[in-house]
């Protein structure tokens, strides 16, 4: 990689893993500042990851991130999002934990205006809250702690939902199994009444287990009560 302006060699010096000689005396101070502000923002963004994996592991990942030409966002608060995207695409085994932590921030910062929205009443159509963040993890990442860095595999895949509620800005979380997750996907595409959604969701499953209807009904009630489902008339 060639640098055309003299100043650009300083950017390389502060970010490169193996920076070579400093372009001027005390340039190493800038390298230290740069590394510290990035490690600080990653530690604040991913406190559980840090407590489970340790600061040294996070710093090692930061170095790999830098080696992969990061960060490229000019908005400092978005560095953790770019770091997460890099971790996911580079096969980092714990990216699901990073994703779990970041989902709340994504929902909180989502640009959608919500204050004029409300949950559907009985018989009204509803659609997923536009800030809702849905992601699937192959393991129960919510169970990961420093004492249990590997959750039991018997838990199976998990679907995590995270959204911001209108007016209060409270971030709500919900964890569901794969069947309920697939069913909610229907409400992401189209506004439906509860009954229409239940019917479609069950029709889509070739072999819905016993109790699926009740579980779907309970989930719908819960999401409506916490404004994870909103009236489409206000959304459109």
């Amino acid at each position, binding site marked *: 990689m060639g640098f055309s302006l003299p100043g650009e060699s300083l950017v390389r010096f502060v970010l490169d893993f193996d920076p070579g000689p400093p372009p001027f005396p005390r340039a190493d101070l*800038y390298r230290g500042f740069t590394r510290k502000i990035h490690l600080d923002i990653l530690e604040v963004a991913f406190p559980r990851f840090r407590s489970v994996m340790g600061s040294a592991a996070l710093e090692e990942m930061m170095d790999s991130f830098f080696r992969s030409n990061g960060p490229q966002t*000019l908005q400092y608060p978005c560095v953790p999002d770019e770091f997460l995207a890099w971790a996911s695409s580079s096969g980092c085994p714990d990216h699901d934990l990073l994703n779990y932590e970041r989902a709340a921030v994504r929902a*909180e910062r989502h640009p959608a205006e919500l204050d004029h929205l409300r949950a559907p009443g009985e018989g009204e159509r509803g659609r997923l809250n536009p800030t809702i963040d849905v992601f699937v993890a192959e393991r129960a990442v919510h169970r990961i702690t420093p004492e249990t860095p590997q959750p039991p595999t018997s838990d199976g895949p998990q679907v995590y939902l995270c959204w911001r509620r209108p007016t209060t800005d409270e971030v709500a979380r919900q964890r569901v199994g794969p069947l309920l997750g697939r069913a909610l996907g229907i409400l992401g595409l189209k506004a439906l009444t509860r009954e229409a959604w239940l019917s479609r969701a069950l029709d889509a499953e070739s072999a819905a287990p016993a109790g699926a209807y009740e579980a779907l009904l309970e989930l719908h009630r819960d999401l409506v009560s916490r404004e994870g489902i909103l009236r489409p008339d206000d959304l459109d």
Partner: protein
Amino acid sequence: MQGARIADLDKGLSVGLGFRRALAESLFSAPSGSIDFVELAPENYLGFGGPRRRLLQKAMAKWPVIAHGLALSLGGDDKLDPVYLEELAQFLSDLGTPHYSDHLCIGSAHGRHSHELLPLPRTMSCARHCAERVDGVSRALGLPMAVEHVSAYGSWPEDELDEADFVTEVVERSGCGLLLDLNNLYVNARNFEFDPYEMLNRMPLEATLQIHMAGHERRPDGLRVDTHSEAILDEVYALLAEALKRTGPVPILIERDGHFPPIEELLVEVEQIRRIANGVFFAG
């Protein structure tokens, strides 16, 4: 509405505080009229909804807001993202900021951002490069630009100009304004052992659109580091009194980014600045 309130800043002395989330609650509850405006970095709000947008709206409803950027890398060569500039222009328009400022530094190269204000080699070619870039940004944003000279801890062997000559070259070539940071000037004077008054008097002060005041840390080895985490030094207040004689009444901002004291302590600094400015403009 917002524009009219911003215009009031030009009519007399105005003193503001950097709007930081750690300070926000105490600032909102401070007595009305304690400060005249706030300043914030668009990079921390642009594109964000939820609590950040709500906080921004609350600040806009209470004070005029001036925007001060961190990320344009005015000394760099990376092409500025036209989509980002368009979004920034809209954001600044909504904010009603009278001008936009950023730093005479390099922050990014070949698409990578250091998120640090890295010093530039003070050469004529670099000054020309910065001037062209400032002019381009100003056109894209549809706003007057002001450039801030940064504090530094090392200097390039390629340097041809001193701080005042370099800043003057950029300001005169681009026709932009100056954001005079008196703490940066003082930090550099101590770190590089020059007379801050002599340097101040050679700065293009007539182009000043705004002044920054702040405190800094002194490390055990004597190096001054521009942390914005300490109280403003008397020496920096003294530079303000000297600078105001030539700049006239421009908005003066206190930057505080760490070791946040009770708001009352910052308001004492605001009052100190008002006393100094009143002494310059109304004495005798």
